[in-house]
C-alpha cells in the first residue's frame, strides 16, 4: 500500500502541476492547435488525481483515518496563553472517501468533455489552469481535517470560480450572457455579462468568507485546536459551554455564512444564477461536485465533527440548526419555482441546483433533532447526514449530465434559450437519453435512486415534525413536486415540445456525447446504492411505505403531464417575479454595485488625499518652515541677542509649567 502522503500529494498536486505548462505556454503563444498536447497533459493531471482518489478509496481500510504533519506551532507563553498547534491534517472518512472519488472523477470526465467543448477558445491557458486549480482546491477542502487548511482550499475555490465564471471576460458574445438583453429592472440592466457575473460571485462569496474566517479564528483561539476529528480535535462541548447559548449560535451562524454564500442559500443565491455566464463545462463542474457542494460538504463535516464530540444536542446548536432547516427548505422551494418559470436552459439548471442545495442543507440540519445514527463499515454516520450526502452524490452526477447536455445543445442550436422538438431528440439520441436518465434519477420517481433518497428525506423530516414544526415537511413536499415538474419541463421544451430549431450545427460532438452518456449511466446505476448500503432502515423501509409510494406515483403523473404539456399561461404575472429572480438580482446589483462604487469613491478619496499630502501639504509645510528658519537670520546682533533672550525665556516658561505639573 502506497503511503498516504504520496497518494494525497498525487491527488492534490498533479492537477495543478500538469496544468502549469499550458498556462505558461499560452502566455506567449495563443495557438489552440499547437497547445493540444499540453491540454492533454492537463487532463492527464486530472486522471492521475482521479485514479489516486480511487486507490485511496479502495486500498485504505473502511475506518476514519487521519494523516497529520506539523505545520504552525505557537508554544505556550507565561501570560496564561495555552499555545496553538496547527497541523497539516488530512482525513479519510465516510464523507471524504466518497466525496473525493466523486469530485476527482467528475472533474476528469468534464475535463474530457472540455477538450471538445473548449477546443476553439481564446483563453485556454487561463481556462485549464483555473479548471485544474478549481479541482485541486475542492479536493483539498474535501480531504483536509483542519479548518485552516480547509480554508485554503475554500479560498482556492473562490478565486478559481471568479476566474472561470469570467473566462469570457471580453463580454462580446450575447450567447454567454444571463437574462434578457435590453430588459431593465429599477433602471439597471436585467442581464448579466461574464465579467460582472464573476465580480458578483466573488463579492458574494467573500462576504461570507470574512465572517467564516473570523469564526475559524475564534474557534482556534478558544479551543486551541482547528481539527475536525482525531486526537486533539476541537472539543465542541467545552467550547459551547464556555460561550453559552447565544455565543454558540452566533459562532455557528458566522461560520455558516461561508457555506451559505458558497452553497447559494437564500438570499445569497443570485450569484449562482448569473454564474451561468461561464463556459458550460465550468457550470457543470461548479454545480455538481465542487464549489456549491463545498458549502454543504463543510456543513456536513462540521455536523459530523460536533456529533463526534457529543455536542450535537447543545441548545445553541439546536437553535442554529433550526434556522438552517428553514433557510435550506425555503431555498429549495424558491429555487424550484424559479426553475419552473425561466426560459434559459442553464438558468433552469442553476435554479435546480439552488433547490437541491437547499434540500441538502435543510436535511443535514435535521441531524441534532433526529439523533439516530447508522453504521456503515466501521463508520458511524448520523442518519440525516447520510441521506443528504447520498442526495449530494446523485445530484452531482445528474446535474453534471444535464449541464453537459445543455452545453452541447447550446453549441448545436446556437441559443441559450429553450428550443428543440422531437426532431432534435432523434438527431441527438445520446443527449435525449442522458437528459431523461438524469431527470428521472434526480426527480425522485420510483424506482430510481432519487426516489429512495427522497423517501429517506421524507422519513427524516416527518419524524421530527413535532419538534421543528410541520412547515418544514410542507416545504419539502412542495419543493419535491415543483422539482419534478421543472425537470419534465426542461426535458420537454428541449427535446419534445419546444420550438423547432431551424439551423443545427450537426457535426462533431462525439467526445461531449460520450462524456455525458457516461455520467448519465452512472447516475442511473446509483439505483444500486440504497440496496448495497446495508442499512435498509434509512432508505428502503421508508420507500416501501404505502404513503410514500403514493407520493412517488403522483410525481410520475406530474412528470408525464408536464412532459406532454410543458407550457402554462396560468402563472401569468408570477412569471415575471420568477424570471426576475424575486428581484434579489436587482437588490444584489444595487448593494454590490453600490458597495463597489462606494469602495472606488473611497479609494479615490484616499488617492486624492495622498496626492494632496505629497503635492501640496508637505511642500508648503516645508517651504513655510524653511522660510521661518531663514527669516530669523536678519544679520543684526541686537536682534540675535533678543532672539536668544526669547528662546531662553520660552524654555524657562516651559520648565516652569513642568515644575507646576510635576513639582
Amino acid at each position, binding site marked *: 500500500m502506497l503511503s498516504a502522503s504520496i497518494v494525497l500529494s498525487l491527488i492534490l498536486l498533479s492537477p495543478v502541476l500538469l496544468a502549469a505548462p499550458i498556462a505558461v505556454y499560452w502566455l506567449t503563444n495563443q495557438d489552440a492547435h499547437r497547445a493540444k498536447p499540453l491540454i492533454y497533459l492537463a487532463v492527464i493531471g486530472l486522471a492521475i488525481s482521479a485514479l489516486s482518489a480511487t486507490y485511496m478509496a479502495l486500498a485504505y481500510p473502511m475506518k476514519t483515518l487521519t494523516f497529520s504533519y506539523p505545520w504552525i506551532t505557537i508554544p505556550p507563553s507565561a501570560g496564561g496563553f495555552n499555545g496553538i498547534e496547527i497541523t497539516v491534517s488530512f482525513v479519510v472518512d465516510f464523507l471524504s472517501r466518497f466525496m473525493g472519488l466523486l469530485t476527482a472523477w467528475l472533474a476528469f470526465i468534464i475535463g474530457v468533455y472540455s477538450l471538445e467543448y473548449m477546443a476553439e477558445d481564446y483563453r485556454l491557458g487561463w481556462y485549464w489552469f483555473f479548471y485544474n486549480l478549481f479541482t485541486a482546491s475542492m479536493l483539498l477542502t474535501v480531504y483536509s481535517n483542519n479548518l485552516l487548511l480547509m480554508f485554503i482550499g475554500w479560498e482556492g475555490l473562490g478565486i478559481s470560480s471568479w476566474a472561470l465564471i469570467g473566462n469570457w471576460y471580453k463580454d462580446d458574445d450575447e450567447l454567454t450572457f444571463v437574462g434578457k438583453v435590453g430588459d431593465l429592472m429599477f433602471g439597471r440592466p436585467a442581464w448579466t455579462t461574464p465579467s460582472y457575473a464573476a465580480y458578483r460571485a466573488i463579492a458574494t462569496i467573500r462576504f461570507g468568507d470574512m465572517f467564516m474566517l473570523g469564526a475559524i479564528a475564534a474557534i482556534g483561539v478558544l479551543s486551541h485546536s482547528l481539527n475536525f476529528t482525531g486526537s486533539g480535535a476541537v472539543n465542541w462541548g467545552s467550547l459551547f459551554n464556555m460561550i453559552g447559548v447565544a455565543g454558540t449560535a452566533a459562532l455557528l451562524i458566522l461560520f455558516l455564512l461561508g457555506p451559505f454564500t458558497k452553497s447559494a442559500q437564500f438570499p445569497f443565491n443570485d450569484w449562482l444564477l448569473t454564474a451561468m455566464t461561464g463556459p458550460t463545462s465550468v457550470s457543470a463542474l461548479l454545480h455538481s461536485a465542487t464549489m456549491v457542494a463545498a458549502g454543504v460538504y463543510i456543513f456536513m463535516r462540521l455536523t459530523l465533527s460536533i456529533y463526534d464530540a457529543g455536542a450535537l444536542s447543545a441548545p445553541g446548536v439546536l437553535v442554529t440548526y433550526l434556522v438552517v432547516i428553514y433557510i435550506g427548505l425555503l431555498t429549495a422551494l424558491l429555487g424550484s419555482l424559479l426553475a419552473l418559470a425561466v426560459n434559459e436552459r442553464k438558468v433552469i439548471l442553476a435554479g435546480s441546483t439552488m433547490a437541491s442545495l437547499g434540500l441538502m442543507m435543510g436535511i443535514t440540519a435535521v441531524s441534532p433533532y433526529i439523533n439516530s445514527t447508522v453504521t456503515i463499515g466501521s463508520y458511524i454516520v448520523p442518519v440525516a447526514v447520510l441521506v443528504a450526502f447520498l442526495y449530494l452524490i446523485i445530484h452531482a452526477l445528474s446535474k453534471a449530465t444535464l449541464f453537459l447536455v445543455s452545453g452541447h445543445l447550446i453549441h448545436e442550436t446556437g441559443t441559450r434559450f429553450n428550443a428543440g422538438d422531437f426532431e432534435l431528440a432523434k438527431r441527438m439520441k445520446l443527449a435525449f437519453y442522458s437528459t431523461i436518465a438524469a431527470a428521472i434519477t434526480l426527480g425522485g420517481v420510483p424506482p430510481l435512486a432519487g426516489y429512495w433518497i427522497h423517501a429517506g428525506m421524507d422519513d427524516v423530516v416527518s419524524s421530527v415534525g413535532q419538534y421543528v414544526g410541520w412547515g418544514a415537511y410542507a416545504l419539502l413536499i412542495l419543493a419535491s413536486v415543483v422539482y419534478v415538474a421543472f425537470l419534465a419541463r426542461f426535458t420537454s421544451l428541449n427535446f419534445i415540445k419546444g420550438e423547432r430549431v431551424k439551423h443545427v450545427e450537426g457535426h462533431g460532438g462525439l467526445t461531449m456525447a460520450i462524456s455525458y452518456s457516461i455520467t448519465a449511466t452512472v447516475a442511473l446505476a446509483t439505483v444500486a446504492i440504497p440496496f448495497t448500503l446495508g442499512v435498509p432502515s434509512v432508505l428502503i423501509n421508508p420507500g416501501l411505505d404505502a404513503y410514500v409510494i403514493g407520493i412517488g406515483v403522483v410525481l410520475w403523473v406530474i412528470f408525464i403531464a408536464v412532459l406532454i404539456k410543458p407550457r402554462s399561461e396560468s402563472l401569468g404575472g408570477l412569471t415575471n417575479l420568477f424570471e426576475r429572480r424575486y428581484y434579489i438580482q436587482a437588490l444584489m446589483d444595487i448593494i454590490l454595485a453600490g458597495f463597489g462604487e462606494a469602495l472606488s469613491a473611497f479609494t479615490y478619496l484616499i488617492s486624492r488625499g495622498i496626492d494632496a499630502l505629497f503635492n501640496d501639504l508637505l511642500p508648503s509645510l516645508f517651504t513655510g518652515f524653511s522660510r521661518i528658519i531663514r527669516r530669523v537670520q536678519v544679520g543684526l*546682533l541686537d536682534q*540675535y541677542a533678543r532672539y536668544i533672550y526669547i528662546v531662553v525665556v520660552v*524654555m524657562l516658561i516651559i520648565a516652569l509649567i513642568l515644575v507646576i505639573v*510635576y*513639582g
Partner: protein
Amino acid sequence: MAEYLTLILSSMIGVVVVTAALMLVKREDYAWIPAILLLLPDLYTSTNYVIYPILVDVVIIGNILSLKVLESSQYRGLDYALMTVIGLVTSYVLYTPISTGAVNLAVYFGFLLGLFMVVSVASYFIIQIGARPENLDAAVKAIVAFVIATVLFFTGSVILLSSYIIGASSLPLFILGYTLVLLGVMLEIGAAPMHIWVPDVFTAGDPIPVSILASTVKIMPLVVLVKLMAPVLANLGEAYVSFAYWLTAVMAALSMIIGNVGALTSRESARVLAYSSIANMGYVLAAAAVLINESTLGKGQQASQALIYALAGLITQLLVNAAGKIGYFTIIKGGGKGSVYSYLFGLSFIGTPPLLGFWSKLFIILSLIYLGPAGLWLAIFLVANSVISIPYYIRVSRELSARAPLGITLYTVLLMSIIMLLGVIIPIPAMVVSLSRGLLSYIA
C-alpha cells in the same frame, strides 16, 4: 590620575614657553612643529582608552595644518599653541575622575567649568584670527554668543549643584538648572533653536577659524554636559532623568530638522555647512540624551549596549563632523578646489557605508534602539533626517569639486579624508565600540 594631569599641565606650559621663545627669535612660523609634538603626551594613558585622545589629536593636527593655509595671522605662532592647549584640555576633560559627595562634587564641578572656560575663552581669540574688517561682524556675533553661553552654563551648573545638595525634593531646582545648562551647551555648540549665530558666522567669517569653531570647539561642551549630569542624576530619581532625557531628545530632534531643512533651502556652500553642523549637533545631542539615562538604565545587557553605542556614536559623530568641516572649509578657503575629496566628505556625512559617517550614525541609532520605545522614535526621526540631507550634501560636494587641491590644503584635506576612510577598515569602528566600553567608566 594625578600623574596624567601633571603630564598635561607640563605639556601645556611647554608649548606656551616654546612658542614664546620662537616668537622672541622671530621664528614663529615654525611654532606648529612643537605645537604638534607637545600635543602627543596626552596619549599617555591606558591603551584601553587611548582611542579618544588619538581622535582628538588628529582633529587638532588638522586644525593646525589648516591654520598654515592662512597667509596672515595676527597671532602667528600663538594660534598653534592655542590649538594645542585646547587639544590637551579636551583630551583631559573626559579623563577627569568622577567625584561624589557634596564637597568633592563642588570641586569636580569647578574643575569641569574651568576646562569649559579655557576652551570658550580660547575660541574668542580663534574667531578673530586673520580677521579683516568684513569678518569682524561675524567675530563679534560669535563672541557674544559664547559669552552668553558661558553665563547660561555656569548659572545652570551652580543651580544643578545646589539641587544635588538639597537632594530628592529638588525637582523644580533641577528643571531650572538643567534647562539653563542645556541651553548654554546648545548655544556654545550651535544647536537649534540656539543656533542663531551659526549661519552668519560660518558665512561671514574666515573659513579657517570657522572650521575650528565647527570642529574642535564642539567636543568639550558635550563631554562636560555628559560628565556633569552623571553624578548629579545618580543621586536623584527617575523623574529627574526622564525630564533631562526628554528635554535633550526633543532639542536633538528640533536641531536635526531645523538644520536639515535650513541646509536644504540654502544656496551658499558655507551656509549649507552651517546648517549641516546644526543638524550634526542634533545627532550628537541624541547620543548625549542616551548617556543621560545611565543612572536608571540598570545593569542589563541591553542597557550596557545602549550606553556603549551612545558613547561610541557621540565620539565618532563629533570626529566625523570635525573632519568633514575642516576638510570642507579648507577647500572653501582654497577656492573650492575639492576634487573627489569633496564627494568623499559628502558621502560620509550622508552616512554611506562603509565610510566613518555611516558608523557614527549607526552607533547612535543602535543606542537609541537599545534604549527602547523612548528612543525608538528618535532613531526613526534620525533616519528620516539622514534621507533629507542627501540632496544638499551632493550639491555642496559638486560645487566644491572644481579642481584638485594643492600644497598644504591638499595635506589637510588628505588627512581628513583618511579619517573618513577609517570606516572602510571594519576593525576600526569595531575597536571604537569595544574601547568605549572602557571609556564609559569615566562617565559613570
